[in-house]
């Protein structure tokens, strides 16, 4: 049964069927062949109940927030406000890219929106400043991936629904690893530039930077206010994650309005982008719930967990194998569909191995970030390349590789010190108990 399923899934994916269709059709075939009663009869109810899931409502609202932020003009001011802070750090604007991505990520739940937004503002400075193109572009592609690790995060909402974990726990768990990863990205740049000073202009600026630093602080206020509204309201107990998303979206509309960028055209194009992404995701989610429903009913999930555990590998070896599996799969598969399709199967295994599903959610999101910058199907690489509009994509392949090392290091640190992820949730949500 396992072999049949695996063969069917892989073949139909490889010949390029839409992922949602692959999942739904596999579910149908399994139900016809192995179930005692046809499961398809329940699919309508399944589709309806997930179509109005209150937790999932947060996803389109965060997507729309990103769509609007991208069009709001916030990022240009953010970029210029952060620049003087890094003028004396080897690598200069490359650190601004990473820091601006991290701050923008704190208001956006999407990696693509983050990379596109920061890329638009940053790339004109690349040749003007005499930076190494691969490293500069790589920092934008990699920095953009922070969008899904630093809360809010669309991916975490969907993971929470599929794995039955709490969005609030996941957000709290993602915060420190997100900061850590951003710092490691910067460390990579400093090491690279010290190693080869030609990668970035010399840091010989004379005079005081403080007036510019202080003057820029006011531009950090709007994104940070949004972050505290969206994330703070959850941990102060004022709002659930879905309610926080609603507050964030309404505030974003207000912010875009204050910047005089709120037109009917902007609103409609944000609607289009939001609906396109949301419905694409939801079709896969509904198909995955149907497949999972069939797989649980016919005992397939148990069989897979059993088969993997009967290998008798120590948990750490099994975990390493799963990490490698995702690194490889991530090279070829679009990330959100990879996450939705595999979460229901992999999370039971992780839990059986004795790991926390919240902790795994964070490791998983970092693996997805890695997938976003690994060729040939790393979408962030193509987003940055498209914003740049010239030159070779090979610059991006080359330039994002060092940042991949930082991601792997973060995963190793998370495996060695799970508290990096699990400490904040226990402090912030004591009611939910150990996670």
């Amino acid at each position, binding site marked *: 049964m396992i072999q049949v399923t695996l063969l069917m899934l892989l073949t139909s994916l490889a010949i390029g069927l839409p992922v949602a269709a692959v999942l739904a059709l596999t579910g149908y075939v399994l139900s016809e062949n192995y179930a005692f009663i046809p499961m*398809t009869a329940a699919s309508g109810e399944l589709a309806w109940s997930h179509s109005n899931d209150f937790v999932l409502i947060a996803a389109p609202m965060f997507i729309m927030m990103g769509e609007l932020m991208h069009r709001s003009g916030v990022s240009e001011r953010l970029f210029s406000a952060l620049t003087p802070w890094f003028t004396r750090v080897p690598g200069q604007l490359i650190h601004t890219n990473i820091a601006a991505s991290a701050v923008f990520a704190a208001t956006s739940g999407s990696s693509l929106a983050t990379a596109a937004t920061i890329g638009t503002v940053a790339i004109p400075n690349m040749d003007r400043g005499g930076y190494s193109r691969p490293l500069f572009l790589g920092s934008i592609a990699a920095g953009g991936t922070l969008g899904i690790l630093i809360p809010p995060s669309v991916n975490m909402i969907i993971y929470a629904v599929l794995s039955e974990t709490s969005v609030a726990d996941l957000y709290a768990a993602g915060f420190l690893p997100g900061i850590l990863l951003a710092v490691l990205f910067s460390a990579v740049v400093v090491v690279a530039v010290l190693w080869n000073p030609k990668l970035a202009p010399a840091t010989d600026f004379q005079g005081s930077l403080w007036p510019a630093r202080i003057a820029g602080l006011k531009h950090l206020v709007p994104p940070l206010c949004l972050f505290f509204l969206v994330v703070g309201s959850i941990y102060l107990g004022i709002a659930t994650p879905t309610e926080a998303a609603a507050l964030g979206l309404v505030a974003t509309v207000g912010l875009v309005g204050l910047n005089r960028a709120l037109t009917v055209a902007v609103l409609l194009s944000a609607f289009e982008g939001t609906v396109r992404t949301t419905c694409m995701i939801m079709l896969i989610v509904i198909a995955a719930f149907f497949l999972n429903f069939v797989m649980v009913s016919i005992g397939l999930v148990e069989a897979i967990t059993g088969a993997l555990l009967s290998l008798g590998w120590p948990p750490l070896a099994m975990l390493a194998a799963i990490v490698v599996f995702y690194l490889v799969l991530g090279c070829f598969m679009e990330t959100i569909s990879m996450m939705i399709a595999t979460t229901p199967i992999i999370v039971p295994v992780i839990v059986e191995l004795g790991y926390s599903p919240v902790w795994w959610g964070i490791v998983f999101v970092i693996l997805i970030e890695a997938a976003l910058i690994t060729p040939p199907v790393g979408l962030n690489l193509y987003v940055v390349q498209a914003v740049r509009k010239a030159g070779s994509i090979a610059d991006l392949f080359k330039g994002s590789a060092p940042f991949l090392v930082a991601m792997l290091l973060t995963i190793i640190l998370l495996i060695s010190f799970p508290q990096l992820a699990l400490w904040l949730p226990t402090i912030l949500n004591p009611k939910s108990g150990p996670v």
Partner: protein
Amino acid sequence: MLQGESRFGLEALTRRVSKVLAWVAGGAILFGCAVPITIDVVSRFFLNRTLLESFEISGYALAACIGLGMGYTVSTKANVRVDFLTMRLPPGIRVVFDLVAAAALAVVAAAIAYFAWGVLQQSEAMNARSMSILQVPLVIPQSVWWVGLFWFACVAVLTPVLAVLRLLGRDRAGADRLIGSTDLAEELELIGADGRAEKPR
């Protein structure tokens, strides 16, 4: 890019309708979810009671968004495919895989619309109402949801048919626009990452 001159009035009409429905679907998220939920959170904070039943309303708004917006994923080729291998095939063979993929989506879309119709009919037969103060007859939100999914099925079935007609008319580019892999420029234009998107003031 997507609105290229079309000999097929039907094709342009399908795109147009899907796009307008996507606007409605997006409006449902902003005005049906975000605004009512915000009103409730604020009133709960200051008045200690909620004014709207936003918990329930927003669920129906999401369902409306998902139903009404689903057709737009077909007309903008948003449904993710692992086309890494098929993209390397010669165009003449690749188009076969594209057709099979479009047909598979059509089958799934038709099945979803069919089973959703079952849900709607059952709610009507049982006169089902939501278990809340509002006691909304479930037929109302489910009808909106179903109408959208029915349109989704129509677009999904029509798309491969139109593509075959294009191919018969020796218009491979036209067929590609309907069912081919999303080309990167199209994709990025749609997510607003074409570098022109950000226009402050």
